[in-house]
């Protein structure tokens, strides 16, 4: 069976959920061969094997942390040369998309980004994309070269499928441009203890209606009662009430959870672009005319300062 390269997104050996989803999709096309780079690369093997990786190619070198993107492109290209895969799959993170694009150009292949589903087709894998703020669903293919496709989080269920996951060291020779962009320093983001926004099953978001940084405690309390991640509209972020990393929308994160709860958010097109594919959508807004209500499965027209805390109390008491 054809091999499919899967680029592994991990933090010091801990594999992130979107990569496990990719392995599920990769198995529809062929046999997943995972590529893990950087610190802790070999530690990813157990999780990858459990989810279907027949092989795990690993490489670590200071270049991966000291320089931007290109060293990882060099490594993925080395893996590509070693394997001759039928497709290359990467998660749709900002960095992985850049790696995917440069690899595609080098190997003479087309690229599809932000797929939300993937199937085997007669002429190679068929990707489903969602376009124009999710108002269209398209089916596309790469028509030249070996398909390079990036896939959004929450596009497939994680399935266990034990495989060999044999670890092999990958030999990488870095290109002349690898050291072009120096990473002078890196400040890791502090963990909030809440689920990762793009991966969470439930997202609770606040907008301009929350009216102040201190009031986000109301949104956080609801999120914590549901085990959810916290999101924010750009208006709330621009006002400095919540960090930019939590922004949902076109220029923020795109989320596709089982449940999205928007409070004090009007539902501008750029916000909708990032949450419209959520399975169930709920909104609390005091304006009955707010466009967000066009999207909802359930909406409450009311003051969020009354409705949200009441909901939180109710959730807590029901969960006992």
């Amino acid at each position, binding site marked *: 069976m054809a091999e499919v390269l899967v680029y592994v997104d991990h*933090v010091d050996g801990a594999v992130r959920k979107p990569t496990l989803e990719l392995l599920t999709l990769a198995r529809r096309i062929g046999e997943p061969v995972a590529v893990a780079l950087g610190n802790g690369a070999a530690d990813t093997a157990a999780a990858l094997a459990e989810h279907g990786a027949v092989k795990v190619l690993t490489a670590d070198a200071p270049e991966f942390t000291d320089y*931007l*993107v290109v060293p990882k*492109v060099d490594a993925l290209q080395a893996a590509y040369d070693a394997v001759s895969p039928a497709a290359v799959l990467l998660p749709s993170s*900002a960095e992985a*998309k*850049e790696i995917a*694009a*440069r690899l*595609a*150009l*080098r190997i003479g292949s*087309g*690229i*599809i*980004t*932000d797929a939300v589903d993937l199937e085997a087709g007669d002429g190679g894998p*068929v990707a489903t994309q969602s*376009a124009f*703020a999710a108002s269209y669903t*398209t*089916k*596309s*293919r*790469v*028509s*030249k*070269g070996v398909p390079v496709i990036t896939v959004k989080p929450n596009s497939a269920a994680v399935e266990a499928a034990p495989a060999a996951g044999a670890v092999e060291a990958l030999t990488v020779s870095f290109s002349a441009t690898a050291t*072009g*962009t*120096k*990473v*002078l320093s*890196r400040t890791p983001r502090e963990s909030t203890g809440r689920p990762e926004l793009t991966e969470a099953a439930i997202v609770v978001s606040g907008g301009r209606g929350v009216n102040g940084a201190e009031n986000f405690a109301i949104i956080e309390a609801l999120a914590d009662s549901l085990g959810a991640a916290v999101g924010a509209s750009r208006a709330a972020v621009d006002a400095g009430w919540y960090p930019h990393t939590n922004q949902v929308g*076109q*220029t923020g994160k795109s989320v596709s959870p089982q*449940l999205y709860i928007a409070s004090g958010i009007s539902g501008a097109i*750029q916000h909708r*672009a990032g949450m419209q594919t959520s399975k169930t*959508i*709920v909104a*609390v807004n005091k304006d*009955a005319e707010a466009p967000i*209500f*066009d999207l*909802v*499965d*359930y*909406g*409450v*027209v*009311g003051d969020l300062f*009354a*409705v*949200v805390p*009441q*909901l939180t*109390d*109710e959730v807590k008491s*029901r969960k006992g």
Partner: protein
Amino acid sequence: MSLRIVVCVKYVPDATGDRHFADDLTLDRDDVDGLLSELDEYAVEQALQIADEADDAEITVLTVGPEDAKDALRKALSMGADKAVHVEDDDLHGTDVIGTSLVLAKAVEKTGYDLVICGMASTDGTMGVLPALLAERLGVPQVTLLSEVSVDGTTVKGRRDGDSASEQLEASLPAVVSVTDQSGEARYPSFKGIMAAKKKPVESLDLEDLEIEAEEVGLGGSWTAVDSAAERPARTAGTIVKDEGEGGKQLAEFLAGQKFI
């Protein structure tokens, strides 16, 4: 020596309008107004600020797009860019990102550059990969997704805020930069700027000028193919209740019914 800055700007359909696919499954440009991608306004703004700090700098705005795309160039010129380059050719219709990066790379090289500045993503294709492709083609460093950028002599520095960390980056010119919407609010064109823009030069180039064969671009030259595009069915109208004091409890009831609690 003058710092040559090229800003890549895209002409896109207005996101607040009704965007559609045409019969050939490319973007239907007749149905909706076009404009300068709002995210590229941030690129123009950073170019203007970098030029202000430099002893001597010249800003060229560059677009690949149909005839109307001149509107995007005019907007950028009215913000303060010095001149414009418009690559237009009927054979470009339907070009994918790999092809677009080829055209932009050739046009950038022809124009001459020390620094290329792009937006973080277009507001239509939203791939966010073009700057990386451009750097790969030009063989220069990519310093992308910056929320803060500055140029000191022949060095470009910036801050990239990623998912798990915030990074300080540095590279030597020439380089390709892309900036996010966190990099600083873009200025509005002044009346004076709008008047001045009318007199600024807009150079038109076609594929022949760039020594690109028609087969390398367009729908036929694309390395990707769209097989179908279907409008997403409208969501079925949800339940909407007015809070009369029990709104939170009613919502909890709904969530429990959906097994979220």
